[in-house]
C-alpha cells in the first residue's frame, strides 16, 4: 500500500474586523435565533476553508422557504399490527391536511435522516416485559445509544400501545418520548398511552396530531441545522502522529459457538478523514499489559528503568508497551539472545541452513516464549535496542463514507493461537477486541490506490473475499448502492461454518433483496464432508465469471495470501476452459487485467 499524502493543516487567523465590518456583523446577527447563528458560523467556516469569498452561494436553508409544505414522518413499530394500523390512519389523515407525509416502519427508516427530521410522529407498541417490537429494536437501540444525534429542530409526538396488565406498561413509548426530548426535540403534545382498547386513547391523539400539522406553517426562519457549505477540514492524522478516534461499536460478529472471534468495529473519524472504499485504517496498537509484565518479570527487571534510544527516553515499561514488538520474533533478536543464553539447541537452530524450518520456529513463538525456554541475561537498554519497533497494523476499511458518514468500520479477526507455553494473541487484534466503547484509538488513513472501484459505475464487479477478506467489499457494496451504480455486484464469500461465521449475513441478505448485491456464492468449508472453498465456487461459476470479465467487469481478491494464490490458479483454469485461451494466453490475459487495474488483489 502506498504511503498516505498528508494534507497541510488549515491555519485559522484571529478575526480582525474593522469598525465598519463589526457594525455590519452586528446588524446581520441581531435578533437571529441560535439555528441561524450556527448556520452563519458554518457558512463562514466554509468560506474560510475554501479561501474564496464566493458570496453567491445560496444558503441551503432557503430551500425550505416559500411554499414548501411541512414535511412530516410517521414512524411505527408494530408486533401484532395495531400500531401499524394507527400509524396508517394518521398517515391518511395528515395527507388529507395536505402535508408532505411519509409512513415508515421503524426498520425501514434510514437512521441517518433522523438528525434532519423536523416533524416526527411515532406510534409504537411495547411487548412482554417492556421490549420494543422486533421491527423497532434497531431504532430504539440507536436512539438510546451514544450515537443518537442532537434533535434540536425536531418537533415530535409519541403514541404508545400496550397492555396495562403488564408491569412495564408502554415502556417503549415512554422511553422514546423522554429520549426525543433529552436530545433537544420539542414535544408537540403529550404522549398517548393506549391500552388494549386502543381507540379510546388513539383517536383523540390522532386528532391532536392532525390539528398540530394544520397549524404548522412552513417556516422561513429556521435554517437547516447542519452547516452545509463547509468544506471538509483535512485530517492531520498520520502514521507518525495518529489521530485519536473514538470507538463507537465493538461487536463480535461470529456466533458464540464459533472458535474464531471476529469483531465489527465502528470508529468515529473527523470530517477530513476522507477515505475511499479499498483504503485501510492504520492502527498503532499497544502490547497487552499482561504480556509486558511477563517479559519484564522474566528479565528480572522492574520496568522503571530509563532507556534512551536515539533522542527518545522512556521507561522500559513504556518502551515495551507502546514501541517494541513483543508478539513477532525476528532473527536478529534470536541471535543476540543466543549469545546470552548459551544453549546449544539455540545455536544449532541458528546454524542450520533450513530457512523454512527456522521461520516456522519463529512464527510459532513470541519474545516471551524464547525468554522462558532459554533464559538469558539482558540489560533494559540492550533488550529494547534488540527488539524491533512496534509497527502499526493495517485493516481494510469495511464501510463507505457515503453510507456511514464520519465513521470507519472494520472487520477484525482476533488472532488467538496456541503458543508453546500459552495463548498467543495478536497485538493489534487483541488490542482492538479489548478496547471498550468510548475508548480513543490511535489511527490514521493508509490509502490503497491499487484497490479501487471502477471509475465507470456501469462496470460489473466480482469480489472474492473469504473470512475478514470480505471487509473492503462491504465498503464497495455500500459505495455502489449510495452512488446508484448500474453495474452488477457479485460476491464470493467463504468461512468454516455458515451458522456461526457468515460475516455480515443479515446485511448481505438485505442487499440481495434490495438489488444492491446481485449474486452471492458461498463456500462453507466444514458444513459438509468434503471441504469446499471459494476457488471451487469460482470454478463452478467459471463460464459466468469469464463472461463478466469479457464484459468489462473488474475483479478483486482480498484475504490470506494462500487463498489469493488458489484463487489465481482457479482464475487461470477457467480462463483456459471458458475463455478459449492456452496457458500462456491465460497468463497474458490475467497480467493485462492486473496492469489495467481490472484485477486487484489485497492479500496479507
Amino acid at each position, binding site marked *: 500500500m502506498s504511503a498516505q499524502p498528508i494534507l497541510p493543516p488549515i491555519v485559522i487567523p484571529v478575526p480582525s474586523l474593522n469598525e465598519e465590518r463589526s457594525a455590519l456583523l452586528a446588524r446581520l446577527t441581531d435578533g437571529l435565533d441560535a439555528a441561524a447563528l450556527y448556520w452563519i458560523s458554518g457558512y463562514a467556516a466554509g468560506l474560510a476553508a475554501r479561501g474564496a469569498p464566493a458570496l453567491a452561494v445560496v444558503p441551503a436553508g432557503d430551500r425550505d422557504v416559500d411554499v414548501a409544505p411541512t414535511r412530516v414522518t410517521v414512524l411505527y413499530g408494530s*408486533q*401484532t*399490527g*395495531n*400500531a401499524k394500523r394507527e400509524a396508517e390512519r394518521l398517515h391518511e389523515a395528515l395527507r388529507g391536511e395536505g402535508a408532505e407525509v411519509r409512513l415508515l416502519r421503524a426498520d425501514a427508516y434510514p437512521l441517518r435522516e433522523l438528525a434532519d427530521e423536523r416533524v416526527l410522529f411515532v406510534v409504537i*407498541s*411495547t*411487548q*412482554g*416485559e417492556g421490549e420494543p417490537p422486533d421491527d423497532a*429494536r434497531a431504532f430504539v437501540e440507536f436512539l438510546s445509544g451514544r450515537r443518537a444525534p442532537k434533535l434540536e429542530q425536531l418537533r415530535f409526538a409519541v403514541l404508545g*400501545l*400496550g*397492555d396495562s*396488565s*403488564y408491569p412495564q*406498561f408502554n415502556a417503549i413509548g415512554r422511553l422514546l418520548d423522554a429520549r426525543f426530548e433529552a436530545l433537544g426535540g420539542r414535544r408537540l403534545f403529550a404522549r398517548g398511552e393506549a391500552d*388494549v382498547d*386502543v381507540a379510546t386513547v388513539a383517536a383523540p391523539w390522532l386528532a391532536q396530531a392532525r390539528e398540530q400539522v394544520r397549524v404548522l406553517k412552513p417556516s422561513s426562519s429556521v435554517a437547516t441545522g447542519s452547516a452545509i457549505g463547509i468544506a471538509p477540514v483535512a485530517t492531520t492524522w498520520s502514521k507518525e502522529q495518529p489521530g485519536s478516534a473514538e470507538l463507537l461499536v465493538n*461487536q*463480535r*460478529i*461470529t*456466533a*458464540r459457538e464459533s472458535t474464531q472471534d471476529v469483531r*465489527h468495529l465502528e470508529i468515529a473519524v473527523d470530517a477530513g478523514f476522507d477515505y475511499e472504499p479499498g483504503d485501510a485504517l492504520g492502527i498503532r496498537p499497544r502490547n497487552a499489559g499482561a504480556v509486558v509484565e511477563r517479559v519484564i518479570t522474566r528479565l528480572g527487571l522492574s520496568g522503571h528503568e530509563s532507556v534512551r534510544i536515539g533522542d527518545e527516553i522512556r521507561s522500559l515499561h513504556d518502551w515495551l508497551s507502546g514501541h517494541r514488538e513483543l508478539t513477532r520474533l525476528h532473527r536478529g533478536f534470536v541471535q543476540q539472545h543466543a549469545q546470552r543464553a548459551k544453549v546449544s539447541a539455540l545455536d544449532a537452530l541458528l546454524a542450520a541452513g533450513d530457512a523454512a524450518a527456522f521461520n516456522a520456529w519463529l512464527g510459532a513463538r513470541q519474545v516471551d516464549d524464547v525468554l522462558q525456554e532459554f533464559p538469558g541475561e539482558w540489560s533494559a537498554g540492550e533488550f529494547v535496542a534488540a527488539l524491533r519497533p512496534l509497527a502499526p497494523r493495517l485493516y481494510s476499511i469495511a464501510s463507505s463514507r457515503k453510507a456511514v458518514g464520519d465513521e470507519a468500520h472494520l472487520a477484525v479477526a482476533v488472532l488467538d493461537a496456541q503458543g508453546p507455553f500459552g495463548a498467543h494473541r495478536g497485538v493489534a487484534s487483541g488490542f482492538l477486541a479489548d478496547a471498550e466503547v468510548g475508548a480513543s484509538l490511535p489511527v490514521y488513513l493508509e490509502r490503497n490506490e491499487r484497490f479501487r472501484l471502477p471509475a465507470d459505475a456501469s462496470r460489473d464487479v466480482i469480489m472474492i473475499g473469504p473470512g475478514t477478506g470480505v471487509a473492503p467489499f462491504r465498503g464497495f457494496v455500500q459505495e455502489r448502492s449510495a452512488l446508484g451504480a448500474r453495474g452488477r455486484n457479485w460476491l464470493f464469500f467463504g468461512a468454516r461454518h*455458515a*451458522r*456461526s461465521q*457468515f*460475516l*455480515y*449475513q*443479515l*446485511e*448481505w*441478505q438485505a442487499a*440481495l433483496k434490495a438489488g444492491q448485491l446481485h449474486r*452471492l456464492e*458461498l463456500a*462453507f468449508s466444514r*458444513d*459438509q464432508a468434503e471441504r469446499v472453498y471459494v476457488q471451487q465456487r469460482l470454478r463452478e461459476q467459471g463460464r459466468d465469471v469469464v463472461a463478466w470479465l469479457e464484459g468489462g467487469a473488474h475483479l478483486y481478491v482480498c484475504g490470506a495470501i494462500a487463498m489469493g494464490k488458489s484463487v489465481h490458479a482457479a482464475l487461470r483454469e477457467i480462463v483456459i476452459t471458458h475463455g478459449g485461451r492456452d496457458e500462456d494466453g491465460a497468463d497474458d490475459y490475467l497480467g493485462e487485467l492486473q496492469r489495467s487495474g481490472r484485477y486487484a488483489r489485497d492479500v496479507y
Partner: protein
Amino acid sequence: MNATGNHDAPNFSSPSRSEGEAGRGLLSPVETLKRESRGLRGTLRESLEDAITGSLRESDAQLLKFHGSYQQDDRDVREERRLQKLEPAYSFMIRTRLPGGVATPAQWLALDALATRYGNDTLRLTTRQAFQIHGILKHDLKPTIAAINQTLIDTIAACGDVNRNVMVSANPVESRAHAKVQAHAVALSEHLLPHTRAYHEIWLDEQQVVGAEASEPIYGPTYLPRKFKVGFAIPPVNDVDVFSQDLGLIAIIEGGELLGYNLLAGGGMGTTHGDARTYPRLADVLGFIRADQVITAATAVLTTQRDHGNRSDRKLSRLKYTIDRLGLDAFKREVEARLGEPLQPAREVHFDHNGDRFGWVEGFDGRWHHTLRIESGRLRDTGTVRGLSGLRAIAAEHRGDFRLTPNQNLVIANVDAADRARIDALLADHGLDDQLRGATFRRFALACVALPTCTLAMAEAERYLPDILDRIESVLIQHGLRDEPLLFRISGCPNGCSRPYLGEIALVGKAPGRYNLMLGADFEGRRLNRLYRENIDEAAILAELDMLFARFAAERAGGEHFGDFVVRTGIVRAPVAIAVELGA
C-alpha cells in the same frame, strides 16, 4: 400491544377476498397458499437449496408443516445474533406420525441415531404419542427425513391442516380388544393421509408423475381449515384426554369384545390471550357407532369440518367453533347425513383417571409392561440420569415393543417374565430406576416444549418444570400433601400443547416469568379449569398455592380431589358446564 405470541402464520396476516366462501368474508392467506402450493410442493426444493439462509421462504416454512416439520430458531440467542449481524439460529423440529405411539426397538434405535447425528442429542416424546427430533439444520433435513422413512415410520401430516397423529390409550394390559382399537387407529390414520406425492418427491427422490398434483380425494385442494386431532380412549383410563380431541372415540367393550365406539366431536385446547372469541372446549358426545363405521364416521366429521370450518380467521377455525356456530344438532344431522345412517344412542362409560400406571404390570396374556416416567417426555443424558443411552441399551436387547403414552411417558411393552430382571438392571445402570421419587403429583405433570425453540412460546415450560415442581412440592409437603395425586400442567402459551385447561392446577404462559394460574379441572379429564389469577409471577403463584393447599388440607371432604375442592368451595366458579354427560 403486549401480546408477545406469534400465531401459526405470523407473516400471512393480511387476508385476501374469498371467492365462493359466501358469508365468511376474507380468506386467510394460508388458504391461498395451500391452494397454490401444487399439492404441498410450493418451492420447497428451492428453499432447501438456498445457502444464503438456514431458513425456508415464508410460504415454504408454512407448507413444511404438512411434511411433519416445523422451522424454529433458538430464541435464547435471537437478540445476540441480531447484534452479531447473523440471522436467527434456525433449526427444524421433525415429528413422526406414529398412530397409538407404538414403535419397534429397531425403530427406536434408528430415531436415536438420527437425534444424535443430526439433532440436539435428545429425543422428545410428545403429548400426542409421537417422537420429536429437535435441532436439525436445513441441510440435514432431507437426509433425516429420508432415514426416518427407511425405518417404516413417516412424518407425513404430523403437523399442518390435516389429521394429526392418531392417539390410542397406551396400556396394552386390559384385553385383546386393545389390539383391535390400535388397528382401527392405524387404519384411520392411513385413510386420512394426504394423497399428494409431494412428500415422496421432495424427501425420498421419487420422480414426479406428470399431472399427479391435483387429486386429494378426502381433503380437496385446501386441506382442512386447521389441524384436526383424533384420539381413541379405552375406559377406564382416559389417558388420551378424549374430551380434548376434535374427534374422540371411546371404545365400548363388553366381556372383552369390542362392540363399537361412542363418537365425540369438538374438543380443543387452544385459545388466544385477550381474544374472548376463543376458548378451550370439551368434546360433545354425538352417539354410538359400530366398529365397522370408524372410518366412515370419522370421515363424515372431518369432511363436515372441511366444508363448514372457518377459513378466514385461523384463530376460529378449529372444529369446536364450527360446531358452536352451526349448533350441535345441525352439526350432528350433517354428520349423520354424510354417514348415511343415524347415530345410535351413546353407551354408558366410566373413567377412573387420565394418568399412566407406572412400573411393571402384567397383561391379560401373561406378558409384562413397564411404564417409565419421563419428565416432559425428554430423553437425554444428564449426569447420572442417562435416558437416551439407557433406552438405547434396552432397545438393543428388547424383544417386545415400545408405547409412547399421551402423558409423555414410555411403556416398555410385551416383555417376557424372564426378561424383566434384565430390563430392571439396565434401567438401574442408567439411573432410570428412581423416576418416581418425590411427591406423587410430580408423576402427573405435563409440560410443552416452549422456549427456546417453540416460536409460539411466551414463557418457559419444559425448562422450568423441574424448578417449579420442586417449589410446589415443598409447599405440598408443608401441608402434608406429599402423597396427593394432583394434575399439574404447564404451557408456554395459550395454544395448549400440554392440555393445560384440563389441569387441576395449570400455568399458562403470558410473558417471561409470568403465567395465568388456572384451577379446578377434575381428575378424569371431564371438566375444564378456570382462570384464577392472571399474569402473576412465581412468588405470587407459590403464595396462592400455599394458601389454597392450607385450605384444602383443612377443609377437604373425604377423598376429594383438589380440583373438585376448589370448585365445591367456590374458590373458582364452577367451570361452564359443557355437556359431557354420557348415556342416552
